[in-house]
């Protein structure tokens, strides 16, 4: 491949001459830029001879223009000669567009930059909490108005969401909890065997799954599946101005988009939580039968004796609360989308992470609360 090159000559007197040759184009320029720029301006004048170049583009013209500008700034007037019509036109064009252009954001002092980032994050967080509370209030008002019959409830949307959230999740939730039931039984059996109390595995499965694990794991699974879907759906509708369109037609986006999702999620998480707990009990019972030799009939009898009804009720009371919070987190993050497609991704991630976090925090509160009420 032919490369661009140049030759340095000393002309008559102290006039410096640079004879540039070869292709002065962006693909071939890399080799000559540094050496050309390394020449220190000397002599009384610089003449750049372009007779030898066989092609030139704006990059080549830019290099020559900058060379002339540097030498001129150092007090050595620079000119080109033997420039083709194209070369002359391009050099004129780049010269006219040589202005100071900002390229990188100003870095600033690292300490203050760090402090300002922390400050901005704190402000953004409190803003976020504030807007979530606002959203929560708005949704509650619309929800109550809907329940009071002052707004229409969109049954089609509710049913459609129920299918997406609940029916379509049956497989994955069932499998997950079934496996968790087996794991709890197996690990419990290993520990209890040391005390000769393998039969207490039934207590372990029944109480832990009904009260805590069944609903908690289901809620986490549903948060991963549906909170992300809500954020992404509503987020892309927001980007596409569909949410604005709803509002201008006179339909409340909260009523149309949020309330059906919240109601469907609350109902479906209740059902899915119960279904998940039952699947976990089935998994644990299967393990007890096959591995510990406890027949199903005995297992069920013992389950009835050791698991109070209150455990199941406590588990199921939590379900709609988790459901409402997961759906609201998903919808809220979707509504916060603005600007570009990237923000849909960020908001979706936040919807999942924050809803799982809040579910676990709430679960801890519930545990303390019900213990304090005397349900042990």
């Amino acid at each position, binding site marked *: 491949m032919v490369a661009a090159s140049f030759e340095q000559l000393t002309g008559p007197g102290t006039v410096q001459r640079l004879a540039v040759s070869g292709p002065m*184009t962006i693909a071939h320029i*890399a080799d000559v830029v540094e050496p050309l720029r390394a020449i220190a301006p000397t002599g009384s004048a610089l003449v750049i001879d372009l007779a030898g170049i066989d092609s030139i583009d704006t990059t080549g013209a830019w290099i020559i223009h900058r060379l002339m500008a540097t030498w001129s700034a150092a007090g050595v007037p620079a000119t080109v000669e033997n420039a083709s019509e194209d070369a002359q*036109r391009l050099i004129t064009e780049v010269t006219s*567009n040589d202005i100071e252009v*900002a*390229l*990188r954001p100003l870095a600033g002092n690292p300490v203050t930059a760090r402090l300002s980032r922390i400050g901005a994050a704190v402000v953004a967080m409190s803003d976020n909490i504030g807007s979530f509370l606002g959203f929560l209030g708005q949704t509650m008002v619309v929800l109550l108005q809907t329940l009071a019959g002052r707004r229409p409830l969109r049954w089609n949307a509710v049913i459609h969401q129920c299918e997406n959230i609940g029916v379509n999740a049956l497989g994955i939730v069932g499998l997950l909890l079934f496996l968790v039931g087996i794991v709890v039984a197996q690990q419990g059996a290993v520990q209890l065997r040391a005390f000769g109390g393998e039969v207490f595995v039934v207590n372990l499965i029944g109480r832990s799954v009904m009260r805590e694990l069944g609903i908690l794991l289901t809620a986490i699974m549903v948060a991963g599946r549906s909170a992300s879907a809500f954020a992404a759906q509503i987020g892309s509708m927001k980007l596409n101005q569909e949410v604005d369109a709803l509002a201008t037609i006179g339909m409340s986006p909260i009523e149309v988009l949020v309330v059906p999702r919240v109601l469907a999620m609350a109902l479906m998480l209740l059902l899915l939580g119960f279904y998940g707990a039952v699947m976990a009990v089935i998994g644990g019972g299967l393990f007890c039968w096959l591995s510990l030799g406890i027949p199903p009939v005995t297992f069920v009898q013992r389950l009835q004796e050791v698991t109070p009804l209150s455990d199941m009720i406590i588990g199921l009371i939590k379900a709609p609360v988790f459901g409402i919070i997961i759906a609201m987190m998903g919808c809220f993050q979707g509504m916060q989308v603005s*600007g*570009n497609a990237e923000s849909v991704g960020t908001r979706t991630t936040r919807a999942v992470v924050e809803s799982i976090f809040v579910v676990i925090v709430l679960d801890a509160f519930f545990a303390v609360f019900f213990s304090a009420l005397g349900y042990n």
Partner: protein
Amino acid sequence: MNALSPTLPDGDDIVIRVRGLVNRFGKQVIHDHLDLDVRRGEIIGIVGGSGSGKSVLMRAIIGLLTPAEGEIGIFGQDARNADAATAKELRRRWGVLFQEGALFSSLTVAENIEVPMREFLHLPEPLMAELAGYKIAMVGLPAEAGPKYPSELSGGMKKRAGLARALSLDPQLLFLDEPTSGLDPISAAAFDELIKVLKQTLGLTVFLITHDLDTLHAICDRVAVIGDKKVLAVGTIAELLLFDHPWVQEYFAGPRGRAARPGAPKAVEAA
């Protein structure tokens, strides 16, 4: 071969040569043996009704879409059957401006312009920054636009930034997909002027898809009309005015077409 034929005589210096192009999606045929020639150094405007396949033609030429049949030659090379290295080499020689600019949203304007340079060339970092700065100035973006992200730019600025990225490697051929759609008339006129100046100074060949009659009048050397799954006619607007086809007549001789003609009594008839 009449004067408005989509193909040019063999002697001409042809940059894009399309022959017998067939594109179909499922059973829907978009192009049925379409021919088109584009001369070096001209601005060719591509017009046609919505859904007539203007963008599909562009996507087929730049290789984003594999046609069912036909030949596509660019710079005398067979673009359809080119091996990976040739295809990459060809890509370096053209720039594409998509409708909404298609800037990478996670990069700043300056970084967007540097992307093709980083991909294809080994240039020193300061030189890349210098060249990016020059391109920003060349397309008429304000000096402080470099560190901004695309989401902080207006529609017109996005298009200018997209154009700067398309021009990053000093291409000889430029594809523009509706460059003035969504711009106000003043910005649109300025963009037209910019393309005209760039074409003159850089010697570009420009493949321009547009609905904008003012753009067609202002900068296009020739106009190709797509309809009935083919290129119906190619010629100057004056020549196309004499072309007897209902859509072409409606397009150029209709009220908007008349209003856009240079020297037309603007808006008098509309009022």
